């Protein structure tokens, strides 16, 4: 049953542009994919190691700016600039992780917010590099041999590959010894340490991979919208990621993707019905309701429901 659903889902994902011709819907799906990568990235930290980073938009932004600047200023090919962006954000994740992961709980959260705040202010004020609030227009669309991936249907497959790659990275990591170390740290840090789990090593590793994935999402975003401005650092992005992970189910692999799909499609549907402010208001209320009524998220709730029906 589950296998059938998975197979159908994969078939659906692979053939989507052929039967979903409406460019607006395709746009929503592409954005859901980019947010899916972001949610997977945040889930690695929040869901598996239990550390809430509220500075994740910084990694998204660094990835977007790096990829945009490498293609615009140094005229690198997209296929080199994107790994470059991932590498640089992973490095930033290592640096910030080394410093911030000495702290726990609210203090860790505040340091991550502050780092994101500083980086966002740098992006506004460092005119020579980032062009300040005006942003960087004309980020080139990727090309594959003679073809341009500018069309939405082509870009869709690029994003799909990005989502699949991120999912595989997360699945391999979580299923390995490293993933068990993450869970041990999440559940009981002193106990994990006492049996020889190197706390700093594993937490920094999670931060590096998580930052790299967020950088990947940033690069995919930059070459899709083909414009990067300090708005990529908006706190709204971080909040959206948190909502997606918490709603989908933190600490599950499918949860962030379900959350991303739902919370990209839902605001768009709300937008058709109401204005933008109502939509954000509904977001806030929804987050509160979720914590009260579905504290573990949609995917774990569904799994529990299925287990109850089977028994």
């Amino acid at each position, binding site marked *: 049953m589950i296998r059938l659903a998975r197979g159908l889902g994969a078939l659906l994902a692979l053939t989507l542009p052929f039967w979903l011709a409406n460019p607006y819907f395709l746009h929503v799906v592409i954005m859901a994919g980019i947010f899916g990568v972001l949610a997977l990235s945040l889930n690695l930290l929040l869901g598996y190691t239990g550390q*809430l980073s509220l500075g994740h938009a910084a990694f998204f932004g660094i990835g977007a700016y790096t990829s945009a600047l490498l293609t615009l200023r140094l005229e690198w090919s997209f296929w080199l600039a994107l790994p470059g962006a991932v590498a640089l954000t992973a490095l930033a994740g290592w640096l910030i992780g080394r410093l911030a992961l000495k702290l726990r709980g609210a*203090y860790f959260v*505040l*340091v991550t917010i*502050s780092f994101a*705040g500083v980086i966002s202010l740098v992006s506004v004020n460092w005119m020579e590099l980032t062009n300040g609030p005006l942003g960087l227009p004309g980020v080139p669309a990727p090309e594959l041999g003679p073809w341009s991936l500018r069309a939405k249907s082509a870009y869709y497959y690029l994003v799909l590959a990005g989502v699949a790659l991120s999912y595989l990275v997360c699945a391999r990591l979580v299923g390995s010894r490293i993933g068990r170390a993450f869970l041990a740290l999440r559940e009981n840090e002193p106990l994990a340490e006492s049996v020889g789990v190197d706390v700093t090593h594993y937490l920094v590793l999670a931060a590096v991979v998580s930052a790299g994935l967020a950088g990947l999402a940033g690069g995919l975003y930059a070459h899709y919208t083909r414009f990067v401005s300090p708005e990529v650092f908006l706190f709204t992005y971080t909040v959206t990621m948190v909502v997606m992970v918490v709603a989908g189910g933190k600490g599950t692999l499918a949860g962030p993707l379900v959350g991303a799909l739902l919370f990209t499609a839902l605001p768009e549907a709300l937008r058709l019905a109401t204005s933008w402010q109502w939509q*954000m208001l509904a*977001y806030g209320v929804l*987050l509160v309701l979720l914590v009260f009524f579905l504290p573990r998220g949609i995917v774990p709730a569904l799994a529990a429901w299925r287990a109850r029906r089977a028994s």
Partner: protein
Amino acid sequence: MEQLLQHLVNGLVLGGTYALLGIGLTLIFGLMNVVNFAHGEFYTLGAYAAFAALALGGVDFVVAVLAAIGAGALLGALCERVLLRPLRAESIDTTMLVMIGVWIAMQNGELLVWGGVAKSIPHPFPTAPLVLGPVSIAPLRVFVLVLAAGLIAASYLLIHRTKLGRAMRATFQDRDTAALMGVRISRIHTATFAFGSALAAAAGALLGPVFLAYPSMGDLAALKAFCVVILGGLGNLPGATLGGLLLGIAEELGAGYVSSGYRDAVGFVIIILVLLLRPSGLFAREERIG
């Protein structure tokens, strides 16, 4: 030198209101263990309450500040009673998520009610600055500083001289023992959250006329409040007061001598440095309240 004095005076005015924000947050954070991301929204609420009272109600400025304090306390009490009390046994992450939700909802609610255009709050003071030797200061700012100082003093009196304050200090030290001694913990939590929110609203009502009122004004205010709490140490009232003044002055000096574009970075950098180098705060020997 004259420039330095001028910066110090401006920093003091800002710092007084930062201290109000910080005292409110440090009480909530320290006593209830709630990371109140909606704190900045109570600041915004205060600014809009003052705007409504002054521009639409046409009342006295002091009455407007009192109205803001009342609105903050009322909504704060409601928020604690409805959202935080049922979650008191939950982890700090859970309540933090709820407060993030409240923050988003309140900010966009304000956007719906008041619109996105920044509002200038009318005030009865003359705009010509008072010149005192080398420094000049607008009469409004003098009033803001005096009122902030008065509210800080009132907070000290409440914490140290009243029965409620003693119960709050007891709850902070040891919740279970305080409960055994007959302190009603639920009431103390409601009172603490209402009190902290009222102080944030007062800060908004005071700084709103100096700057402008707009829906997202609370975001930076919340971060500055966290910065003050971290500087002063959790639950530390004198620490929060000194931390607020220090942050205000540091921002003015940073904007004056380094770059005005990085004014708001000062708070972030302070948070990072203090947490990495001296996590218990600059003035704290131990975490305490009072």
